[in-house]
C-alpha cells in the first residue's frame, strides 16, 4: 500500500520536472543522486570525477525527461544514462582499451568462492582490475547486461566481452582466494 503513493509521487515529480520545476527536479535529484553516485563510483575510481560524471548524467536526465515513458522504472532509466556517461568519460580519458580476442572458449568453470567482505573492500577489488576488465565485469556481473548488449554499448565484439569477463573473474577469484587464506575474509591489498 505504501509503494503506490510513492510511485504516484514520483510520476508527479517527473511531470513537474519536465516543466522545469526546480523544486521537483531537486526532489528527484535528492531521491536518486546517492545511488547514482554509487553506480558511477563502480566505473570511475576517482570520487571527484565520479561526481562530475553523475552531475553530467543528471543534466541529461532533466534534459531528456520528456522522452521518459513511464513504462520501466525511473531509476533504471537514470541508471542507463549514468552508465553511458561513465563509458563516455572513460573513453574521453582513453582509459578504455580492449584487446580483440580470438574465438577462444571462455566458458571455463570457476570455483564457487564465497566472500564475506564489505562494500568498500569489494570496491577496492574492482578498482584493482584493469579498466577494460572492470567495465565488462561491472556491466555483466553487477548490472546484469548480456554480452550482446555490452558489445553494442562498448562497440566491441561479443568474444572480446566474454574474454574480458573471463579474465576479470579469474583475477578476482585469485584475489579473493589469497584474501581468504591470509585474512579469513578480511581484505589485504
Amino acid at each position, binding site marked *: 500500500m505504501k509503494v503506490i503513493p510513492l510511485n504516484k509521487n514520483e510520476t508527479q515529480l517527473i511531470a513537474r520536472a519536465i516543466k522545469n520545476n526546480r523544486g521537483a527536479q531537486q526532489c528527484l535529484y535528492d531521491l536518486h543522486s546517492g545511488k547514482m553516485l*554509487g553506480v558511477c563510483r563502480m566505473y570511475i575510481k576517482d570520487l571527484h570525477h565520479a561526481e562530475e560524471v553523475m552531475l553530467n548524467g543528471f543534466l541529461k536526465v*532533466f*534534459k531528456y525527461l520528456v522522452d521518459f515513458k513511464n513504462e520501466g522504472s525511473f531509476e533504471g532509466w537514470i541508471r542507463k544514462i549514468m552508465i553511458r556517461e561513465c563509458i563516455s568519460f572513460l573513453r574521453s580519458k582513453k582509459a578504455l582499451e580492449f584487446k580483440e580476442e580470438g574465438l577462444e572458449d571462455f566458458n571455463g568453470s570457476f570455483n564457487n568462492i564465497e566472500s564475506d567482505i564489505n562494500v568498500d573492500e569489494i570496491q577496492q577489488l574492482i578498482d584493482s582490475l584493469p579498466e577494460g576488465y572492470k567495465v565488462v565485469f561491472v556491466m555483466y556481473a553487477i548490472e546484469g547486461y548480456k554480452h550482446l548488449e555490452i558489445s553494442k554499448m562498448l562497440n566491441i565484439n561479443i568474444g572480446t566481452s566474454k574474454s574480458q569477463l573471463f579474465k576479470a573473474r579469474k583475477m578476482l577469484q585469485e584475489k*579473493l582466494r589469497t584474501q581468504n587464506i591470509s585474512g579469513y575474509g578480511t581484505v589485504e591489498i
Partner: protein
Amino acid sequence: MGQLKFEKDFSEKLNKRKIEPKAGSWEELSARLNSEEKSKKPIFWWIGIAATLVGGILIFSILFNKPISETPVIVNAPEEEIFKEQIESQQISFEKPASKEEAKPEKAPVKTVKNIFSKKEPVANSKLASIGKPQESSKTENDQSYKDPDLMKETKISGNPEEAIVEATTNANKTGEITDAEVDTLLAEALTKIKGDKSAKSVSENIDANSLLLEVELEMEQSIREKVFDVLKVGYFKAKTAVVNRN
C-alpha cells in the same frame, strides 16, 4: 554462464550502496540547468530569424523571376507576316471566279489596294514611281504575265505587294472596268498616304524601340526592388521587435 556466488554478493552489496554527493552539488547542477535553458532560447530565436530571411529570399526570387518570364519578346516578323497574310487573302480574292467579280466589279479591287496601302509601311519611292505610270510601259509584260500561269505563280509565291497592285490594276484593265484616270487617282491617293506614313515614321524613328523597352524594364525592376525591400524591411523589423521583446 550465470552469476557466480561472489558476484551475487558483490551485486547485492553494491546495488544497496549509496554515496552522498558533496554539499552544494545540487546548486551546481541547478546553475548548469539555468545556463542550459538560457542557451536554448537564442537558438530558437535564431531559427526564427533564419526562417524569416529564407522567406524573404523566396519572395524575392519569386518576384524577381516573374517579370523576366513575362517580359514581352520583341518580334520583328509580325509586320511581314501580316503583310503576307494580307496578300494571300488578296490573291484568294483574285482567284475567285469571275461571276463573283462581276457582282461587284468596280469596288472589290479598289478596296484591296487600299487595304494593302493602309497596312504597308516600307515601300520605296522609286518603286512607287514605277507604279505611278504603269499602263503604257509595262502593259505588254503585264499582259504576258497575266496570261502565263507560271508567272502568275511566281507573283503569288513572292507575295510582293507592289506586284499585287500592278496585278490588280492590270486585271482591272483587262476587264476594262477601271479607267486609267481612276487608276491614276488611286495611285496618287496611295502615294499621298504613303508619304504621310513616311513622315510619321520619320518622326517615330527618333525614338528607339529598344531604349523604350529598356526604360520600361528598368521601371518594372525598380518597382520589384521596392517591393522586395519592403518585404525584407518588414521581416527585419519583426525579428528586431521579437528580440527586443524577448529581452
